[in-house]
């Protein structure tokens, strides 16, 4: 074998703390190394050209590039060697940037470590074999999980491009958080006027099948061919008959149900249509509040329903679907702010969340768009907004900035003035984060034009005194403790990944961070892809973002899905397991451990043997580590290849 080694400087990123020329010269002594050099930017066009030239000039049969992480540029360099006529798997990378030059400043130690990583790569490459992908057909259908604004955008873009789309939404209506908002910043235009038509488009689009009040139950398969099981939750109303007339909701005698859509601002009935513009506009029964279910006596909705749609015996229903790609757009939820006992922990009715306040502002909300104190229904005059409740707060495990609170608080202060002209708004903030088009101008307007009183500081405590709430805070710019006698306190509660997000991530086999946000493939270059091929991200599920960004990411995810599903055939990854039939004794251990059911038993002249189903194998190598005979080997990560790396490091 003739191996070429290229040590990348990555400008000064590597060369700053690694003597690249020394590493290249050490590599010349490694077995089978025919050529070794250092190179300024291996990934740049001149760098790639130099690699190709060297392969041709020195008749190289394998290449090692020591540069950044293979998670970044392995695909790049594989294409490079392919262009020079080599098989793409005759290539190895040594990660001397993320794992060496960026984590230590000791040039001697770094240079030595880099040389050893190159040695490991060379040792492995010597055992590499040419691998060839197989191709398989693609199911041209997209699953969108979540019907908020990001999911709606992704679904409509994909459907408009001609793709079949299945949308699954957990709640009885799509629209997500945006549907709950009264107005949007920085234009203060009506939220439901912008979103409503898009929701209708989803319902009417010939390419979109909507499953509301449904959840993804399980997912199997792989890119191009996922098998999805959808659980349609029992709504106890036959939606094929329900016309959304709302008679049942008027007559329902159980009037103290928690109103999920309205964030608990005022009660609702046990049978509900979440809001007038709901899509689908169908009724559903909240079992825990329904008299029929709790006492066995009632049946009012069944009696009044003109189409006989009520079905108390309804069961969850399962739907199987085959899709080629998946967009996760599950959004966010507010964190449980009741951990803030110093703000009452939920004991004081006139301390509300920003989303509750949004419902109070909304003309279609439970107060008809009148701002009223929950305690006594009176109109508040002094409204205090507290920002960063559950954001940027290590003590409650939420160190991150939620990103949109500064802006919606400014918007809510403006709306407060619009609703109650003689009111006074006070905003406690730590920093005003408004880096968007027209955003900072907006936060100036609220102070200059609307006279909102911005106070730089946090609030230590809120407590009731008579009819007022005493807000004890600080104005750090004055360096003083301040107190406000408030009528209403609005908490800008921090957001977190939607409830159940980690659970869905496990089904999708994508990673999530410690706060439940899904991990993108690369923070800069693969912001909507995940590390699982065929699964894309849109909206706040990937990281908190406002409406424009969510919409943009929804479109981006659709574009990525379209690029994938525009092809008729996909290449399978050849880094999969294969069985050496001579060694296999048919013990079935590999079949038992395989998480993908990718191994089956076959009969070879009366002997039981294992066989890998190539399109199903995902290349985890569990079988390889399990096989007592070493008969089943994961291509490109065989026992011998990995041991060669270990041996390159061993003393003996």
């Amino acid at each position: 074998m003739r191996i070429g080694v290229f040590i990348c400087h990555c400008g000064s990123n590597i060369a700053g703390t690694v003597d690249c020329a020394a590493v290249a010269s050490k590599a010349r002594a490694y077995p089978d190394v025919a050529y070794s050099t250092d190179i300024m930017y291996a990934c740049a066009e001149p760098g790639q050209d130099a690699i190709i030239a060297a392969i041709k000039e020195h008749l190289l049969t394998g290449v090692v590039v020591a540069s950044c992480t293979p998670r970044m540029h392995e695909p790049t360099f594989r294409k490079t060697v392919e262009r020079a006529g080599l098989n793409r798997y005759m290539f190895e990378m040594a990660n001397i940037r993320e794992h060496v030059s960026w984590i230590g400043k000791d040039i001697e130690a770094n240079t030595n470590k880099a040389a050893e990583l190159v040695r490991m790569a060379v040792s492995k490459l010597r055992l590499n074999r040419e691998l060839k992908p197989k191709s398989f057909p693609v199911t041209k259908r997209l699953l969108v999980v979540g019907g908020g604004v990001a999911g709606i955008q992704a679904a409509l873009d994909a459907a408009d491009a001609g793709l079949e789309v299945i949308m699954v939404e957990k709640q009885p209506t799509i629209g997500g958080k945006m549907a709950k908002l009264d107005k949007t910043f920085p234009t203060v235009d009506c939220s439901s006027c912008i979103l409503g038509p898009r929701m209708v488009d989803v319902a009417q689009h010939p390419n979109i099948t909507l499953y509301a009040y449904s959840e993804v139950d399980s997912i199997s398969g792989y890119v191009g061919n996922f098998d999805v099981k959808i659980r349609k939750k029992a709504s106890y109303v036959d939606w094929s008959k329900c016309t959304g007339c709302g008679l049942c909701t008027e007559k329902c005698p159980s009037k103290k149900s928690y109103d999920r859509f309205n964030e608990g601002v005022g009660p609702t009935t046990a049978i509900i249509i979440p809001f007038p513009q709901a899509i689908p506009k169908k009724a559903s029964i909240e079992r825990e509040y329904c008299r029929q279910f709790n006492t066995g006596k009632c049946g009012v909705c069944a009696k009044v329903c003109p189409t006989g749609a009520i079905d108390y015996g309804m069961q969850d229903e399962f739907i199987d679907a085959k899709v080629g790609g998946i967009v996760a757009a599950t959004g966010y939820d507010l964190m449980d702010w009741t951990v803030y006992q110093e703000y009452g922990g939920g004991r004081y009715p006139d301390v509300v969340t920003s989303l509750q306040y949004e419902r109070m502002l909304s003309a279609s909300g439970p107060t008809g768009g009148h701002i009223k104190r929950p305690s006594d229904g009176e109109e508040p005059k002094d409204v205090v907004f507290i920002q960063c409740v559950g954001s940027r707060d290590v003590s409650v495990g939420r160190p991150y900035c939620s990103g949109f609170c500064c802006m919606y608080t400014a918007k809510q202060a403006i709306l407060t003035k619009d609703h109650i002209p003689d009111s006074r708004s006070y905003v406690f903030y730590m920093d005003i984060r408004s880096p968007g088009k027209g955003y900072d101008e907006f936060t100036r307007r609220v102070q200059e034009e609307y006279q909102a009183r911005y106070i730089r500081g946090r609030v230590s405590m809120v407590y009731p005194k008579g009819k007022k709430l005493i807000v004890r805070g600080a104005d750090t710019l004055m360096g003083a403790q301040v107190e406000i006698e408030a009528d209403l306190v609005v908490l800008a509660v921090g957001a977190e990944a939607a409830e159940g997000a980690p659970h869905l991530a496990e089904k999708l086999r994508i990673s999530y961070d410690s706060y439940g946000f899904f991990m993108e493939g690369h923070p800069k270059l693969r912001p909507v892809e995940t590390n699982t091929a065929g699964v894309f991200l849109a909206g706040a599920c990937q990281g908190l973002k406002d409406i424009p960004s969510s919409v943009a990411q929804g479109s981006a995810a659709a574009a990525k899905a379209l690029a994938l599903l525009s092809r008729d055939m996909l290449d399978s990854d050849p880094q999969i397991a294969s069985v050496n039939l001579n060694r296999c004794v048919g013990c079935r251990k590999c079949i038992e451990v395989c998480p993908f059911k990718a191994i089956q038993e076959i009969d070879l002249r009366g002997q039981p043997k294992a066989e890998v189903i190539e399109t199903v194998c995902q290349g985890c190598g569990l079988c390889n580590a399990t096989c007592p005979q070493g008969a089943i080997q994961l291509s490109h990560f065989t026992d011998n290849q990995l041991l060669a790396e270990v041996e390159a490091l061993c003393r003996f």
Partner: protein
Amino acid sequence: MSGAAFGYFPGCSGLGTSLEYERSTRAVCRELGLTLWDIPDWNCCGSTPAHTVDPVLSAALSARVFAQGARAGIRDVLTPCPSCLSNLRNALEHMEDELFAARVEALTERPLEAGHSVKSVLQVIVEDVGLDKVKERVRRPLTGLKTVPYYGCLMTRPEKIMRFDDPENPQSMDLLLQALGAQVLPFPLKVDCCGGSLGIPVRDSVPRLAGRILELAGELGADMVVVACPLCQMNLDLRQGQIRTRGLDYTIPVPYFTQLMAYAFGLGDEEAAFKLLAEDVAPAFSCMRRRAEEIKAEEARVAALAAQKAAARAGRGAQSRANGAAGGEA
């Protein structure tokens, strides 16, 4: 948990300004079957001043207390005073650090073995004895007494060291007072600072801070502010006159929770020791008795009404056919 024994550390104020806390605590513990062994020849824990000077000095004073206990075979210490508790706890916590322990030993010149613990009387009654046992022991329930519990800042803070109840909204005294039959008003300032030991050097502090607490208690219509800390008690009760000269316009008694327990347990005046308080409890108790009678009368009225209704319903059932639709509900 009856029959448990603790080394008892009354704290210096127990011999002086909180004599009533001391007496009622001993009586209540006896009634609940807790045996208290006095730590022989105990010394002052140093309180806030020692801690202000140096935590090592403070810990050294605490270490002598533990060592005195250990000599008498006592490991688990009980104290009524949150300030003492805080010092003793902090000492144990800090001395987990080798260097800190070595510095303490340089002052005490006797090494302290491990295995000591210290708890407050409130914690032991609520967590170890249990409120059911307290309830069983009640002979004179405090029905009709409106109370606000005031915990002060030291009982639950710092959270990591005190490890007791919620640091912002503690419940233990609330539940205890309810177990005694009293009405407990939600009190948002239950962990606000009363001024602590700054009452002497910064005269303005206590009227201001304790005043705020007393004012809200009054607004809520409380008969009593119930406390667990000698320093708080002194600021709220003894200095109430000073606070009144600064604008507080009423008086309110500030007993320790143990005094109310002693009363509810039916113990004698000597042990409840209400006489030692600066502000008189008598008006509050007469309010309580009046309200208790009102409650009793109301209960009787409701019961009678219910009986009447039941009888009517039974009668109506029998006559329903004869009476037809004549029966209207009262």
